[in-house]
C-alpha cells in the first residue's frame, strides 16, 4: 500500500489449542501485514481469533501453539526465533496493551516500579535515571502529578488511569510496533475517547506502527488506516478503512456494519444483529464458515470453501460472490452485493 517494506508480515498463520475434545484451530491461514507507522485494525466478534493472532505475534499464547505459517518481523520469523530472542523483542521492539487494565498490573508494586522494570529489562539504566524516565512517561500519557502517581499502587488509580500506566509501560522502550488488544473495551465511553485520542497522539509523535484489535467498527473508523475483518479464525475481508467501511464487499462485513445501531432507530424496533452465533471451533461449518448465518448464501457455500479473492489493489474478500471463473460467473453476477434472494437463484448455477 505504502510501498514500504512491511514491519510485520503474518503469512498463513495457524494456531491450535489442545482441548479435551481434541485440538482446535483458533486461527486458520491468516495473512496480513503492518507497515511502519501505520495502524491496522483487526476486527471481529468474540471467538474470531483476533486476540489469539495478537498473542501469537507476541509469543504469549498460554497453551496454544503456532502450527504453521510465519510471523515475520523485520527480517526475523517470530514463530521460530526462540525464547531468548523473543524476550529481547518483547517490550523493546513490540509492546502490548491489554484489555483489562484493572487486572493487568501487579497489585503489589507501585506503578513507578512496574514502569522502571520495563525500562531496565532492556536498557542499561541506573535506578534513579529509570525512575525519572518513568515519571516522564507518566506525564506523557497525561497523568496529573506524575511524581506522586509513580508512587501509587494500581488499586489507587481508576481504570482509565491504569490503562494510561499500561500505555506508559508499553512505550517505555519506544517500540516500533504496539499491539493493542481491545484497550478500551473495559472502560467508560468518555474515558475510551480520551484513551483513543492519547494513543493516536503518541503513535503520531513516536512513529509507532499499531496493530489494533477491536470488535468495535466505530473504533476502527477512528483509529485505523487499514482493516482486517476476521471470522471464525479466518480473514474474510481486508482493505483500506474508508473502502471497507464505505463499500464492504463481504457479506459478513456488511452484516457487522449493519449491526451498529443508529441513533435514529426506534425504541420498539429490534436491534439489528447477525442471526446465530459464532460457530464453536470444535465444529466449524463446512465450506464457507459464515454460510449458516449469511443472508446471501447459496448452494456453493456449504460445500466449497471460498478462497480470498483479490478484488482490487490491497483489497481482498473471502466470498464465492466474487468468483469470476466460468463456474462462478453466473452466481457472482446474479447475486450481487445487494444479496437479495440469493439462495432462490440457485437454479441458474452453471456447473
Amino acid at each position: 500500500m505504502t510501498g514500504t517494506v512491511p514491519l510485520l508480515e503474518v503469512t498463513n498463520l495457524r494456531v491450535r489449542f489442545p482441548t479435551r475434545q481434541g485440538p482446535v484451530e483458533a486461527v486458520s491461514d491468516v495473512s496480513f501485514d503492518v507497515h511502519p507507522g501505520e495502524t491496522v485494525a483487526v476486527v471481529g466478534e468474540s471467538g474470531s481469533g483476533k486476540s489469539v493472532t495478537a498473542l501469537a505475534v507476541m509469543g504469549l499464547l498460554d497453551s496454544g501453539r503456532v502450527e504453521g505459517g510465519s510471523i515475520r518481523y523485520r527480517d526475523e520469523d517470530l514463530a521460530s526465533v526462540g525464547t531468548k530472542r523473543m524476550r529481547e523483542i518483547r517490550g523493546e521492539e513490540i509492546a502490548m496493551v491489554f484489555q483489562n487494565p484493572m487486572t493487568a498490573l501487579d497489585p503489589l508494586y507501585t506503578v513507578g516500579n512496574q514502569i522502571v522494570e520495563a525500562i531496565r529489562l532492556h536498557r542499561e539504566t541506573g535506578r534513579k535515571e529509570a525512575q525519572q524516565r518513568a515519571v516522564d512517561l507518566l506525564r506523557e500519557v497525561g497523568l496529573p502529578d506524575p511524581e506522586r502517581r509513580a508512587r501509587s499502587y494500581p488499586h489507587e488509580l481508576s481504570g482509565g488511569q491504569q490503562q494510561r500506566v499500561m500505555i506508559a509501560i508499553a512505550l517505555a522502550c519506544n517500540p516500533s510496533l504496539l499491539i493493542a488488544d481491545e484497550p478500551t473495551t473495559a472502560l467508560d465511553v468518555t474515558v475510551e475517547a480520551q484513551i483513543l485520542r492519547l494513543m493516536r497522539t503518541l503513535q503520531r509523535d513516536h512513529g509507532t506502527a499499531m496493530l489494533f484489535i477491536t470488535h468495535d467498527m466505530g473504533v476502527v473508523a477512528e483509529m485505523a488506516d487499514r482493516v482486517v475483518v476476521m471470522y471464525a479464525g479466518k480473514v474474510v475481508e481486508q482493505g483500506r478503512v474508508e473502502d471497507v467501511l464505505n463499500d464492504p464487499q463481504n457479506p459478513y462485513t456488511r452484516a457487522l456494519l449493519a449491526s451498529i445501531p443508529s441513533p435514529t432507530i426506534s425504541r420498539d424496533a429490534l436491534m439489528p444483529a447477525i442471526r446465530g452465533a459464532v460457530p464453536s471451533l470444535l465444529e466449524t461449518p463446512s465450506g464457507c464458515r459464515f454460510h449458516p448465518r449469511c443472508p446471501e448464501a447459496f448452494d456453493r457455500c456449504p460445500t466449497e470453501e471460498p478462497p480470498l479473492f483479490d478484488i482490487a489493489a490491497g483489497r481482498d474478500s473471502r466470498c464465492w460472490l466474487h468468483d469470476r471463473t466460468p463456474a462462478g460467473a453466473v452466481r457472482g453476477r446474479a447475486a450481487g452485493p445487494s444479496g437479495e434472494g440469493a439462495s432462490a437463484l440457485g437454479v441458474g448455477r452453471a456447473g
Partner: protein
Amino acid sequence: MIRYVLGRLVYGLVVLALVTVFVFVAITFIPSDAVDVMLADTGATEEQAAAMRSELGLDRPVWEQLGSFLGNAVQGDFGRSFYTDEPVVDLFLDRIPITLQLGGLALVIGTVLGLVLGIIAAVRRGTATDGAVRVTAVTFLSVPNFVLGLLILTALGLWFAWSPPFVYRGPTEDFVSWAQHMAIPAIALGTASMAGITRMTRSSLLENLGSQYIRTVRAKGAGERLVLFKHAMRNSVIAVLTLIGVDLATVLGGTVILEQMFSLPGTGQLVYQAVLDRDYPVVIACTIFYAGLFIVTMIIIDLLYAFIDPRIRAAREAGR
C-alpha cells in the same frame, strides 16, 4: 496501624481469658483428681485424702479456685506444681527452649521444603515431577507424625543399626548429639506442614502464573525467574503464610506426643505428664502459654500481610 495492632492485642487477651476459663472448667470434669492419683495404692484413708485436698485447695468450689488462680495469674504467679512444689513458671521456663527448638526446626523444615517442592511442581506442572511431588504431598498429609517418627526410627534401627541418643544434650553442650536427637522428631513433625505448604504453594502459584498481570510482565520481555520470584511468588505468599500460622498449632500439638516418644524434656513432655498426674497448675499454665504463643504468631502473620499487600495496608489505615 498501631491502633490496629492494639486492637488485635486486646482481642488476643480476651481469647486468652476464655481459653483459661474453659480449661479450668474442663479439667474438673476429668474423673479422679491429683489426690486420687497420688494416693492410689497407698492405702491412705478418706480422711487423709480430704486433708490433702484442703491443703491443695481442691475442696473449694471451681469458681472460687478459678477466681484465686486468675487473681494470682495477673500478678505473674501461676501457682506451684502439686508434686514438686516448684513454681510452675520455673518448671516451664526450664523446658520451653527444647520445645521451641523442636517446633521451630519442624516449621523451618516444613516451610523451606514445602516452598521448594511447591515451586518445582508449579513450574513443571503436568510433568512426571509434578505428579511425584503431588503424590508425596498427599502421602505425607495422610500419615500421622508419630507414626512417621516410629517408622523412621524403626527403619534406621533395622537397616543401619543406628539409634538416635535418648538423653537430651543442649546444642551448645554437644551439637552433634543434639542434632541427632532432634532430627527425627523434627522431620516427623515438619513433613505434614511441608505437604500442606507444597500443595498451597503449587496451587497458589499456578493461579497467579495464569493471571493477566503476569502476562503483562512477560510482555515487557521479562524472563521466567523475574516472573516467578518478583511477581508470582510474592502474590502467592499470603496464602502460604496463613497456612504456616495454622501449622504452628499442629506442630505445637505434635510436640506433646513426639517429645514423649523421643524422651525430649520439653514442655510437651511436661504437659503430658501433668495431665496424667492431674497436676492442674502445670496443665493450665502450659495451655495459656501455648494459646499465647499462637495468638502472638497470628498477630505477626497479620502484620506481614499488610507488609506484603498494599491493599490490605490501605484498608487497615482507613480503619476498615
